[in-house]
Structures are given as C-alpha cells and as structure tokens.
C-alpha cells in the first residue's frame, strides 16, 4: 500500500501472495482485496502466472545434447578407469570379466579387442552406444604396442566371441557392449559410422584431457596410413607426440593428433584430406 492509494500495485500484491507482507499492512491489504474487484482480478491474474508456468511441460533434452553429454561422461569414466582397463590387456581373463560386467549397464566404456588383417591391433571402445576406433600400431609399432596387440588378441579370443554380438555392434547401448568376433567383424566395425565417437568443439578438449591421463606408453601413437603419418609430420613437426587417434569430428572422419608444444599440448583435428603436403585441420585447441 502506498499512502491513501485506492488500488494495489502488482509488486505489492505479488509480495503479499508470497507471504512477504504480514502484520497490520497485511491485514490492510487483505481488507482491500475483499472490497475491490479490480485488485481481486489482478490478484487472480498473479495466481495464474504460477499456474501457467507450472503447466508448461519441461522440454526434453535434445538427442544431440544427450549424446554429447554421454560422450563427455564416458570420457570422465574413461579417465577414471583406463589405468585398470589398460592394465587388463596383460590379464585377458580379467578383461573378459570386465567386459561382461560393463555390459550390464547402458553407461560404460567396454573394450572390444579385434584383429585387423594388416597385423595392426585395433581397439574399439563403446560407451553408451558410441565407439572410438584406435589404430595402435602396424608393422612399425614400438615393442610396447606389439605386446599389447598380442595380449589384445588373446583377450578377444577369450571374450566369448559370437557372430550375433557383432551384429549388435551398432545397436542401442543395452545391446552394444558384447565382445565381438574379431575375424568376422573387424572390417565392418571400422566402416560403421555408428562405431566412431563424434567429437565436437565442445567435447574435444575434455576428451583429449581424459585420454592424456593414460601413461604415454599405453596411448595409441601410430597409424597404419602413410598419409596420416605425413599429416602428423606436417602439423607436429618434431614436437613429441602424445596421442594419435582416429575419430569423427562434427560427423567427419578425422584424426586426433596431440603433441607437446612447450608447456602445453596442442591438439589438432586433422581432416580426411590432411597429408604431408596438405594442411587439412578441422579444429585445434591447446590443453594444459
């Protein structure tokens, strides 16, 4: 109330309705409301604001946002679990048990270990229905990767391979984490866009940070493609490589290249046309 004003203003009414005005002033407002149709109508309108807001349904999270957040959280999980995950490469029996355990839930980062004809080991990660292929080595792989590849092969063969599980590879999360028959499905997995994680500018830095928590010796560092090796040389020159992974970036095939540049690591997202003579970079960020 303001002095002898006849009618209540909206702010006062709103505060009165919220219980913020009590005592004598509250009694006066209540008395005025009882006698004034105009202010009662305004009071009803104010009550209608809350009712209107309550009636508006919550917008469902868009699939693109849900997918992005699943990837980000999978990267967080990966950052926490990768030590144990990679350590199991040398303990194949436990690795199979881990995969089966992870397959019980929709949110996980199960590891599929398969062989490719060229002798390179390929590790497919599937988290919540998204996967990331890693080309770890080839003929020129360092000894540590050769060892990992051999163990990976043993792990895959001990992980209950089946053709049906390979067929489920692109299925929703509930069905996607079963171990895969290495001989039957490696090639098709590599070609399936559903199996490659689709990074974006928003998720790139965080994903790379999670990957860099792995010991250097356990990170994928070399690809089988001479074109990509040329691209790496063009971008990183002699900077120490920290990570090389194949992925998708905003839906495009890409190679994530990370090299130590000074105090930080520089991340390049190389496009499919990147080579020793052509700088095709989709994005670049620096991570500490």
């Amino acid at each position, binding site marked *: 109330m303001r002095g002898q004003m006849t009618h209540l203003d*909206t*702010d006062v*009414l*709103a*505060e009165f*309705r*919220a*219980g*913020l005005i009590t005592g004598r002033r509250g009694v006066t407002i209540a008395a005025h409301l009882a006698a004034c149709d105009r202010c009662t*109508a*305004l009071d009803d*309108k*104010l009550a*209608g*604001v*809350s009712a*209107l*807001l*309550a*009636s*508006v*349904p*919550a*917008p*469902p*999270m*868009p699939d693109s*946002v*849900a997918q*992005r*957040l*699943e990837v*980000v*959280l*999978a990267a*967080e*999980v990966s950052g*926490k*679990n990768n030590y144990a995950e990679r350590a199991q490469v040398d303990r194949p029996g436990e690795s199979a048990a881990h995969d089966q355990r*992870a397959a*019980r*839930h*929709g*949110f*996980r*980062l199960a590891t599929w270990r398969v062989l490719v004809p060229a002798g390179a080991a390929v590790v497919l990660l599937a988290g*919540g229905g998204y996967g990331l292929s890693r080309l770890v080595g080839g003929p020129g792989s360092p000894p540590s990767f050769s060892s990992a590849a051999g163990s990976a092969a043993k792990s895959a063969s001990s992980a209950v391979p089946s053709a049906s599980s390979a067929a489920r590879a692109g299925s929703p999360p509930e069905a996607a984490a079963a171990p895969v028959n290495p001989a039957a499905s490696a090639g098709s997995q590599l070609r399936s866009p559903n199996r490659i994680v689709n990074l974006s500018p*928003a*998720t790139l830095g*965080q994903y790379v940070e999670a990957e860099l928590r792995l010991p250097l010796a356990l990170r994928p560092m070399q690809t089988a493609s001479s074109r990509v090796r040329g691209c790496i040389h063009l971008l990183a020159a002699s900077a120490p490589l920290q990570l090389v992974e194949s992925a998708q970036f905003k839906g495009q095939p890409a190679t994530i290249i990370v090299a130590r540049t000074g105090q930080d690591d520089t991340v390049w997202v190389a496009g499919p046309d990147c080579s020793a003579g052509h700088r095709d970079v989709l994005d670049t960020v620096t991570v500490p």
Partner: protein
Amino acid sequence: MPDADEDGPSDQELLRRHVAGDSDAFGELFRRHRDRLWAVALRTVCDPDEAADALQDAMVSAFRRAADFRGESAVTTWLHRIVVNASLDRLRRRAARPALSAGDEQAFEALVAQDGDPARAVDTRLDVDAALRILPPQQRAALVVVDMLGFSVADAAAILETSPGTVKSRCARARARLLPYVAHLQGNRSASESVSPAQGGDT
C-alpha cells in the same frame, strides 16, 4: 522431489556407488534426471547452446565432486544446485554481450517478432520461454525452480544457495514482472493492457 527409482537404487545409493568406483552409477543418475536438469539449464540461460555448455560443465563438476556430497539435501537438490550455478556462471561470462536488458520492452518485441505474435501463437511454451528472458537471471532461476519445476521454497533456497525469504522475494518480483507479458495466455488480455511492467531491480 523423488529421490529413488521404484525399480532401482536411490539417487543417493547411485552417488555412493559412483564415489566407490562404480563406472555405471553416475551415468544412470544423469539419465534419470537429465530432462529436468536440461529444463533448468535451458530456462535459466535461455539459449540451447549455452544451456548445453552449462549442463556439461555442471555434470563434469558433479562427476568429479561427488565425494563432496554430504547428504544434507536430496541428490536432486544437489544436482540442480550445480546446474543452476553453472548456468548463472555462463550468464555472467556473457554479461558483456547481454541478449536483453531487464524489462526492455523493445527487446521483448524483437523476441516476439522472432517467435511469432504471442496473441496468435499456437505454442504456449514459446511465449513463456520468451517472456522468461525478460527477467533478471536470479529472478528467472528462482521462478524456474519454484513455479516450473515444483521445488518447495526451502529446496529452492538450497538450490539457489540463499534464504527462503530471498527466494520468495525473487519469485514475487518475477511473477509481477512477467504478468503483463503472459496475461494473454490466461485467456484474458485485460491485465496486460492495464498493468505496467514491474520496474524493480534484481535481487
């Protein structure tokens, strides 16, 4: 707010499992509440891209700081608090380029022009969402949490990290300010024609 899934572990149990090292637990918790968390982020920052960024910041923060949860409130309250804080942080960061100044009717008209004439709009939510942008962020967050998500004033105070009285005050000012812009959605335009927008400042 419900804190348990009838067919599954409670939110608190999921958080405990996450802290204990269960790599599935946080994802399940996130999926259980993601639409409501998205709603509070989207309606607080009023921009889908910013909301996605804010929610990402919030979920990563919650993932990493889960051990800090002391059980003094419901897990949903804790999650909403983190999302609201991340959303308000986003708004502060973009303060140099505000989309709207509070109570700016010209800006509102511009919004309406983008979203369609509210008098003829079919989609009520568009109008409400557009009108929400008129509010200062703190008032908007309070109104979203209390009136749109249905939290009690006490829970809203925990989410917004303020007193119940401040929550009531912010909500009251916000409702008064919104009234002229949403009155037509109540089926009678007389209020919007006769009531001037509230001119109170942010709390």
